[in-house]
C-alpha cells in the first residue's frame, strides 16, 4: 500500500501540540475520572506546568537527561536506508537512551515531579516492559519504592524486562484481569492508585490517561523534536524535516518526535499503529484506523470499542503497541489532518526489524519496527529529509524475532 497526501493542511495552525486548559486537544482529551482520583489528578494538574517550567526542575532534569539518560541522542544519517528508499533518512537514536527506549525521558521528569509533590511511592503500568524498566530504574536512582503493573500475557512475552525490573528492586504485579495486557495493567494501576491516593504518584508511561498526563508526557518527551531541530540545523542546514515517522501505541514517542513540528505546514508527520494480523482481521491494535471516539483510561480519544461502548481487546505482536486506545493528541492530529497514521501489520513490522538490522546494524524494538515499516509505504523525493524516531532497541524482542525467523 502506498499512501498519497492530499491533505497537506494549508491553513497553518499553531499550538496544536498543547491542549486547552481543561486538557482538550480539539474534541479529545479531558479527565474522565471517578471522584476517588479527582484530588490526585487535580493536584498534579495544578502543579505540573509550574514545576516543569521552574528553573530548579529544568536544571535537574537536564542534567539527568545528559548524564544519566545519555542525551542528546544522536541523529544518525542512515546511508544504506537512504540509498534504498531514495531520500535522506535519519534515525533519531532513542534506542541509545539508558534502559533502551525513549520512555526514560518522561520517567525522569515525572519522578522529579513526584518528589516535588512529596509522594514517597511510585506505581506504573507497563506493556512491553520498557516503561516498567524505566520507572524501576529511576526509582532505584531516587530511592523511591516502585510497583509496576504488567499483564500476565506481557510478562511471558517480555521476560527480559521482568528480570530487569526485579533486579532494579521494583515489585512487579502480574495482572490477570481482562486482556492480561497493557489495557488491564493500566486499569489495575489506576485501581491501585484509587486505593493509595495519599502517598502514591502514578507515573503513566505514555501520552494517555486523564489530563494533565497526555500533556505532561508530551512536554517531557518533546526533548526529542527539540534536539532534532538543532541537529538538523547543523547537519542539513534547516531546522525541520520533511517527514517524521514514529510508531504510536499510547503515542508518547510520536508526540515527542512531532512536538515542535506540529502545524508548521512543512513537516509531514506520520504515525504508525499496530495493525496486528490486519486492520480488518479482528486481531488488530490499529486504533485510528478502526477506532471511534470514546473514553478510555480517563480521556476522550479514539478507541476500539463495540457498538455498546465496551472496550475491545487489542492485538499486536508488539506488547508496547497492544493497546486499544491512543493518546488524545493523536486523535486530534488525525482528525485535523495535521498528522497521518498508517497501519502496519505484525509481519510488516517483523520484516522491517530484520531489514533495519541487516541494513544498518541496528536491531530495533518491535514497536519501533512499526515506524521503520512505513518507509516502504511512502514515496519520497530524493531531497526529502526523513527522520525516523528510533524509539527503542530490540534486546527485549529477541525471542519473538527468533521464533518468527525460524518459522519463515
Amino acid at each position: 500500500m502506498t499512501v498519497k497526501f492530499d491533505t497537506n493542511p494549508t491553513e497553518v495552525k499553531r499550538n496544536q501540540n498543547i491542549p486547552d486548559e481543561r486538557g482538550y486537544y480539539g474534541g479529545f482529551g479531558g479527565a474522565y475520572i471517578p471522584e476517588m482520583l479527582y484530588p490526585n489528578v487535580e493536584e498534579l494538574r495544578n502543579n505540573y506546568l509550574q514545576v516543569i517550567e521552574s528553573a530548579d526542575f529544568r536544571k535537574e532534569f537536564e542534567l539527568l537527561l545528559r548524564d544519566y539518560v545519555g542525551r542528546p541522542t544522536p541523529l544518525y544519517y542512515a546511508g544504506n536506508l537512504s540509498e534504498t528508499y531514495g531520500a535522506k533518512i535519519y534515525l533519531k537514536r532513542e534506542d541509545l537512551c539508558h534502559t533502551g527506549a525513549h520512555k526514560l525521558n518522561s520517567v525522569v521528569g515525572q519522578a522529579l515531579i513526584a518528589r516535588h509533590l512529596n509522594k514517597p511511592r511510585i506505581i506504573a503500568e507497563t506493556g512491553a516492559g520498557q516503561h516498567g524498566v524505566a520507572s524501576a530504574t529511576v526509582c532505584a536512582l531516587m530511592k523511591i519504592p516502585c510497583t509496576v503493573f504488567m499483564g500476565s500475557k506481557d510478562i511471558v512475552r517480555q521476560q527480559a524486562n521482568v528480570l530487569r525490573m526485579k533486579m532494579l528492586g521494583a515489585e512487579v504485579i502480574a495482572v490477570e484481569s481482562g486482556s492480561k495486557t497493557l489495557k488491564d495493567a493500566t486499569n489495575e494501576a489506576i485501581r491501585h492508585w484509587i486505593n493509595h491516593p495519599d502517598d502514591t504518584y502514578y507515573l503513566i508511561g505514555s501520552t494517555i490517561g486523564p489530563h494533565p498526563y497526555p500533556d505532561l508526557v508530551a512536554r517531557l518527551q518533546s526533548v526529542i523534536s527539540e534536539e532534532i531541530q538543532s541537529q538538523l540545523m547543523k547537519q542539513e542546514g534547516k531546522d525541520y524535516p520533511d517527514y517524521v515517522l514514529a510508531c504510536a501505541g499510547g503515542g508518547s514517542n510520536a508526540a515527542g518526535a512531532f512536538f515542535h513540528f506540529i502545524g508548521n505546514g512543512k513537516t509531514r508527520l506520520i504515525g504508525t499503529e499496530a495493525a496486528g494480523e490486519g486492520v480488518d482481521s479482528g486481531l488488530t491494535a490499529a486504533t485510528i484506523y478502526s477506532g471511534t471516539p470514546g473514553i478510555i483510561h480517563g480521556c476522550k480519544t479514539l478507541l476500539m470499542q463495540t457498538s455498546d461502548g465496551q472496550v475491545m481487546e487489542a492485538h499486536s505482536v508488539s506488547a508496547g503497541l497492544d493497546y486499544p486506545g491512543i493518546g488524545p493528541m493523536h486523535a486530534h492530529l488525525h482528525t485535523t489532518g495535521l498528522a497521518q497514521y498508517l497501519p502496519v501489520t505484525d509481519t510488516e513490522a517483523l520484516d522491517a526489524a530484520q531489514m533495519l538490522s541487516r541494513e544498518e546494524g541496528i536491531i530495533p524494538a518491535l514497536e519501533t519496527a512499526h515506524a521503520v515499516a512505513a518507509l516502504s509505504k511512502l514515496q519520497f523525493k530524493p531531497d526529502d529529509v526523513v527522520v525516523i524516531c528510533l524509539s527503542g532497541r530490540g534486546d527485549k524482542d529477541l525471542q519473538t524475532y527468533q521464533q518468527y525467523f525460524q518459522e519463515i
Partner: protein
Amino acid sequence: MNALQNLFHNKKQNQLSLFFTAGYPTIDSTAGIIEACQKAGIDFLEVGMPYSDPLADGPVIQQSSTRAIVNGMTIELLFNQLEALKGKTTIPLLLMGYLNPVIQFGAERFMEKASATGASGLILPDLPIHEYREEYQTLFEKYNLSPVFLITPHTSDERIKLIDELSNAFIYVVSSAATTGKKQDFGQAQLVYFQRLKSMNLKNPLIGGFGIHNRQTLQQAWQNLNGAICGSAFLKKLAATPDAEKAVEELKKDLGLKMD
C-alpha cells in the same frame, strides 16, 4: 419529583440500597432481583450497567461485569427488561455505570429511555462535573433524572458544596479512598469524615457506600449518614445462590438486619 426524590422526601433515615450488575448472574436476572429487593423492603436500587473497564471497581464488581457482558447484557437489552417490568414494581431505581457506553448509546437517547423505563436517576462516576453542567444538566432536568455524584474523604469542602448544589436526590458518600468491595470495618477515619460532612449542613441526604458488608459498617452509615448502599457483598450472595430472594435474605442477615 421522581420516585427517588419522593422516597427521600418521606424517609430521612436508615435507607438501605443495593447495587447489582444487570445481566448477572444470568442475562435475565434483572427482574427477579428487583422484585426480590422490593419484597425484602430495600429502599432503592442501583442497577449497574456492565462495563469492560470498570476503573473504580474491585474484583467482585469487575467479575460480575465481565460475566454480564459475556452473557450478552447491553444497555438496549436492559431498557427492554426495565420496560417489561414497568408498573410491576415501585422501588426507585438508579442506573449506574461508566460514561463511555452511555455516550455510545447517545446521551439524550439514553436519558429519554432511562426516564421512560422508570429510572429516577443516574450515577456516572467518571462524568466530570464541568461537563455535567455544560452538556448534561439540561438533559437530566428535561428527563426528570436526578444526577448522583460521589464524594470521598479526599473531596474538598468546596467541591462538596458544589456537588450539594448540583444534586437533588442524595450524595453518594464513598466511605474511604478505595475501589469497591473492600472488606474492612469502619474506623476512626470514617467517623471523622462523617462528622465533617454532618457539620457542613448539606441540603441533600448522604448515603454511604463502598465497603458496606456487615452490621458494623451498616450501623455506622446509618448512625452518621442517611443510609447505605451495599454492592459487592450483594453480588457475592447472588453468585452463591440463583435465588434472588434468598440472596437478599442472606445479605440482610450479614448486615445484622435479620436474626437466624
